[in-house]
């Protein structure tokens, strides 16, 4: 009975810890898998929190990172290009690939459940699965993810490399010619 209570508590703790895994904001199947990133030529998925300095309210813009320049960030949401002043961005999250979090999460739960047979000793082995598995899952979810509150010029410069046009907006391109990535297939 004691062991069952412990296991229930352990699995609950795992699920809570895994809840601290960084969420993905990109649409399902939008981000490439890690091994596809070498060929991918779209920008990463950017989620911006912005303060409207007139109404003093916050709102979010998300979409593909097209490019940045000294003053603005260009984000393509569906077929709408958002031109966002860097001055008003309060938080920025850039994701570049689809993480393998589920595999690590499943392993952590299964590993903890396997400690049922340990009896008394699960007090030692279950936490190792909780800590190790959650750390691995949490680590995987946060890997290659660029997050910054009140982003600085250093941050924008860094994520520019993960935009569709790291060289900057093409001078002869009009923004309304841009089209979003089709979800039926990557490039």
């Amino acid at each position, binding site marked *: 009975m004691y062991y069952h209570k412990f296991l229930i508590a352990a699995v609950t703790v795992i699920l809570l810890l895994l809840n601290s895994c960084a969420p993905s904001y990109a649409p399902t199947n939008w981000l490439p898998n890690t091994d596809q990133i070498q060929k991918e030529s779209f920008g990463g998925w950017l989620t911006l929190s912005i303060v409207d300095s007139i109404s003093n309210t916050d709102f979010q813009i998300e979409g593909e990172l097209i490019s940045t320049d000294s003053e603005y960030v260009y984000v393509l949401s569906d077929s709408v290009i958002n031109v966002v002043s860097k001055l008003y961005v309060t938080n920025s999250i850039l994701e570049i690939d689809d993480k393998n979090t589920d595999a690590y999460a499943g392993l952590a739960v299964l590993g903890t459940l396997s400690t049922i047979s340990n009896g008394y000793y699960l007090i030692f082995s279950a936490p190792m699965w909780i800590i190790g598995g959650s750390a691995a899952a949490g680590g995987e979810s946060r890997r290659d993810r660029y997050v910054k509150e009140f982003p600085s010029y250093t941050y924008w410069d860094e994520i520019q490399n993960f935009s569709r046009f790291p*060289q900057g907006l093409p001078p002869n391109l009009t923004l309304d010619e841009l089209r979003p990535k089709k979800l039926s297939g990557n490039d």
Partner: protein
Amino acid sequence: MKKSNIDRTGMKISYSNYRRSKIKIAIIFICILTPAIILMSCATARITRTVEKPKNFPYLKYSDDIPYIKLHTESGSVYSLHSWEFNEATQTITGIGELLDFNRNVIKEDTFSVSYDEILLVETNEINASSPVLGLSVMTGITLAITIACISNPKACFGSCPTFYVKEGNDFVLQAEGFSSSILPSLEEKDIDAISKVKPYKSEMILKLKNEALETHVIRSANILALPHKKNGRIFATTNDGFYEVDKIQKPLLCTNKTDDITNEVSMLDGLEWFSTSDSSNLAEKETVEITFSNIEKANNGLIISYRQKLLTTFLFYQSLSYMGSNTGNWLSNAERVNNDMNQKIGKIDDLLGGIEVLIQSDSEEWIKVGEIIETGPIATDIKIIPLPENALLTSSKIKLRMTKGLWRIDNIALAHIVDTVEPIKITPQKAFYNELEDPVAVKKLNDSTKALVTLPGDEYELVYQLPSNFKEYDYFIESRGYYLEWLRNEWLVDENPDKVNQMLFNPIQYLKDLAPEFKEIEADMERSFWSSKYVLP
């Protein structure tokens, strides 16, 4: 295990108890070892993206690690190629793959030979398994018998990352400290520092690269950047490695911190610095400095700040190592392994302390942040320019700086008119000398991005650079890249406290409040202890 008896049933029972206990022990070992094994091998992949102009690209041919290359053009189209190779003789890149338009529709599939002139940027992506630190060695048990000052105040021990001195006449003048915040391999970064105190008098520049602390320095490159300027122009670096030529540099009309007039301290780059002391109850407490200028240009203004840190970050860094104690290697290896997660948590302290924020007033008199200088290092003064938005100072001629109390020393603040952006000429070292003997291997290591020059405490190298023939028409900067590893001092191990490490990672706000009283006690004496504990070979 129960003693067996001759009863057949009893023997079965006792044997089955024995077998169950064996199985239980085996399962316990598996369940304890497996997460450890998985965690060690659970190296999550990391994506290393390299983006550079063709002539500066560090790789010349595809490999198993970098099978694909992308070539970005001015029109927005991109070549995505495999089996690629650079041809430096013809200045082309060849490969097999696709040409995609700006919406990433395939225009053509073929074998391409693309001229450098057509390519703005080259991109590759390497996917690595992040593993426990390669070459991470934490030297424990170093006792500083030779520096009494350090023993009496262990958290004030001299530490720096590589220091660069520039030769002037027969002397070497301290000019820069390289990549001060790169305390782990995963934090390796490029650093650019102005050579502001020395003007070259001939077309050869000699740098002395020193390891003056109990640290291992891993130096990937150490170059000079030369930037041409017009007769009355000066060159300044931005916070994102760009460069502006400026003119019409002016001093502040007035500069205040609360009610104190600090104009005199910040009017000239003269070693006379303004600084404050830390807050006694919260090391992250902020303060502001207000600056007023006159004769402001309507557009293209930039704020120039000459600064270095005080010893607060040195104290916090050493205190964190002290709390990690004998488990420092495990903590730091974990940071390398799960990378962004642990490093983000460690970086939260830096986020709370922040840099020197530059704010201007909007039309509605709100203060808006337009830039920030974040650069660690208490040893050498550096100079950066923050470009201001157009019409920034039309509403008000005031600029505000916001920063953590007691963290910064400011030598000079000035306003300048930005004339143009400038591209640097990179000058790599031609010769290196160690103990007065020429060391061609050191030069090769510094000029090969896949290698590194490793220095130990007391090492000194003299690096020789050939400047342009019209060297007086340039401003110069040191561009260094690498990371360093701190050696643990015996005196730090007494503070080992995993609870404090957890507080640092998960409640950094309270951590900085709790440490405030301890830092205040030693703050006044730290400078003297710090400078007197430099490591010098006898």
